[in-house]
């Protein structure tokens, strides 16, 4: 488990100050999510030992890495927190293999972790080994950077916007590697990003940052059902993330089961039946009806209990819908709430449009 509590003021006219505290359970992926300038990269630098906070304590599995109260500050090389940087930061004077072995050679003796061959196979690096970093594409560079960090056998893997410099196809090329890594469950990760899709796919725990402060922290699914967090609820794609089990095909659609219901979606990516994937159900894709409308274009009409009506701007509101233990949010106009005379506690039908929905 990673415990972070720090306070730091950056010099300069902007006078940005950071005051953040959170814990990241291990194993698992903790995503620091926020706009640029929210302080997330500074927190990561402080964990890595590349930034010395004015005040605070950072501890990994009970061992203090930084503790200004006792004057403790472990240098980065003693922390075993390998970093995958946004720009890769591969050593230009070493081949890909030389880069990969750099961390491996310095890993503490007896440290657990994947072997060279295993990492090369996992990340598909075999054809690149003899090349120089200058001759790699952006996606290849990040794969090498990830491999290099893994081979250092870290106790915690830090990722600082590792996909931000890549275009969309490259991102989708790297994300499965990160998911596979998470699913092995061996290595805790702290992942910094401003892209909600990455948080949706990778986060077990989400830490929302704004202006150097932690706005909220908790399990991803729970946080996405909250409507009081502008960072999530004010987005166009605001909505809950459901962890679904991939079922069989039905009439050419994939069945995704979640606690309290199931959805039929056009495509569940390439995940085989039995696997778990995350699905972001956007609040604007959810409608409610009284009874079951006779003819519908969507396959997904689910009985739900209207738990609460929460404001969203001047003319709209979120309907909190309970489906067994799961929650859906629907974004509707206030006029609609009045017209249907919706009251918390009653049972409605949630109509979910999954066409063009985002696979989380």
């Amino acid at each position: 488990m990673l415990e972070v509590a720090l306070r730091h003021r950056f010099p300069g006219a902007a006078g940005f100050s950071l005051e953040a505290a959170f814990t990241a359970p291990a194993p698992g992926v903790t995503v620091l999510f926020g706009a640029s300038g929210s302080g997330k990269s500074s927190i990561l630098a402080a964990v890595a030992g590349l930034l010395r906070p004015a005040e605070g304590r950072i501890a990994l599995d009970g061992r203090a890495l930084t503790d200004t109260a006792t004057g403790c500050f472990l240098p980065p090389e003693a922390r075993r927190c390998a970093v995958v940087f946004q720009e890769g930061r591969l050593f230009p004077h070493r081949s890909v293999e030389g880069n990969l072995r750099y961390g491996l050679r310095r890993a503490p003796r007896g440290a657990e972790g994947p072997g060279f061959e295993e990492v090369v196979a996992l990340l598909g690096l075999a054809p690149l080994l003899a090349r120089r970093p200058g001759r790699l594409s952006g996606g290849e560079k990040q794969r090498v950077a990830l491999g290099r960090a893994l081979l250092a056998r870290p106790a915690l893997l830090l990722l600082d916007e590792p996909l931000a410099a890549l275009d969309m196809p490259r991102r989708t090329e790297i994300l499965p590697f990160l998911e596979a890594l998470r699913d092995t469950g061996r290595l805790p990760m702290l992942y910094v990003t401003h892209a909600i899709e990455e948080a949706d796919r990778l986060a077990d725990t989400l830490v929302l940052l704004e202006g150097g402060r932690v706005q909220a922290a908790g399990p991803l699914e729970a946080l996405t059902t909250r409507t009081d967090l502008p960072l999530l609820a004010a987005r166009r794609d605001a909505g809950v993330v459901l962890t679904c089990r991939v079922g069989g095909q039905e009439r050419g659609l994939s069945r995704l089961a979640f606690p309290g219901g199931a959805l039929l979606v056009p495509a569940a990516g390439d995940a085989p039946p039995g696997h778990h994937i995350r699905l972001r159900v956007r609040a604007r894709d959810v409608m409610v009806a009284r009874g079951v409308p006779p003819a519908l274009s969507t396959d997904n009409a689910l009985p739900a209990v209207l738990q609460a009506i929460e404001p969203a701007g001047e003319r709209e509101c979120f309907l909190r819908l309970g489906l067994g233990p799961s929650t859906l949010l629907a974004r509707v106009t206030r006029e609609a709430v009045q017209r249907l005379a919706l009251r918390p506690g009653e049972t409605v039908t949630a109509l979910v449009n999954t066409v063009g929905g985002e696979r989380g």
Partner: protein
Amino acid sequence: MTLTPEEWQAVRLSLTVSLRAVAVSLPLATLMALLLARGRFPGRTLLDAIVHLPLVVPPVVTGWALLLLFGLRGPLGAPLFEWFGIRLAFTSEGAALATGVMTFPLIVRAIRLSLEGLDRGLEDAAATLGAGRLDRFLTVTLPLMAPGILAGGVVAFAAGLGEFGAVITFASNVPGETQTLPLAIYSATQSPGGEAVAARLAAISFALAILGLLASDVLARWLARRLGRG
């Protein structure tokens, strides 16, 4: 074109004096460049200025200052001679010292340039992978500084071949001991009928300079390839 033994001697002397000067000043200049580029201490600007003085002060003045410091009765020259028996003034070692002092700022500048272009993020990355300070310096910083060190060395060597004012002031113009190429050319132009000698030696200077520049160019390309930027 044939050279007399004396002329050969001047060529050889120039080469060895310049080579010795570069060999001694290269590691010192590397340290100085690191200190100036990365050090944070009071007096850094002053130190920077002192290092660069030989570039702007007339070479004769530099030579004279060396004579005052390292002369047999100078504050540094006297103990050197008494304790170690080392005499610098009017010797080929002195010529090398004068050449080294004159070319020192050239090397420092070249190395500093390469240091300032170096992405410090790479050293941070090495640290997070478990490399300590010395380890990082040897495996990341130094290899990436190499182009600057080599370029500085080659330029200083080429410039050292032509050092005149400081050498003649500090080491004098002793044939076979301190009479390097430029000094031999100067002597030839001063003696009646020496034009032919001067022309031959000037041609050699010219050829050496061209060779030096070509070598530095080839070296730079080779390094760029090695560093994966080519």
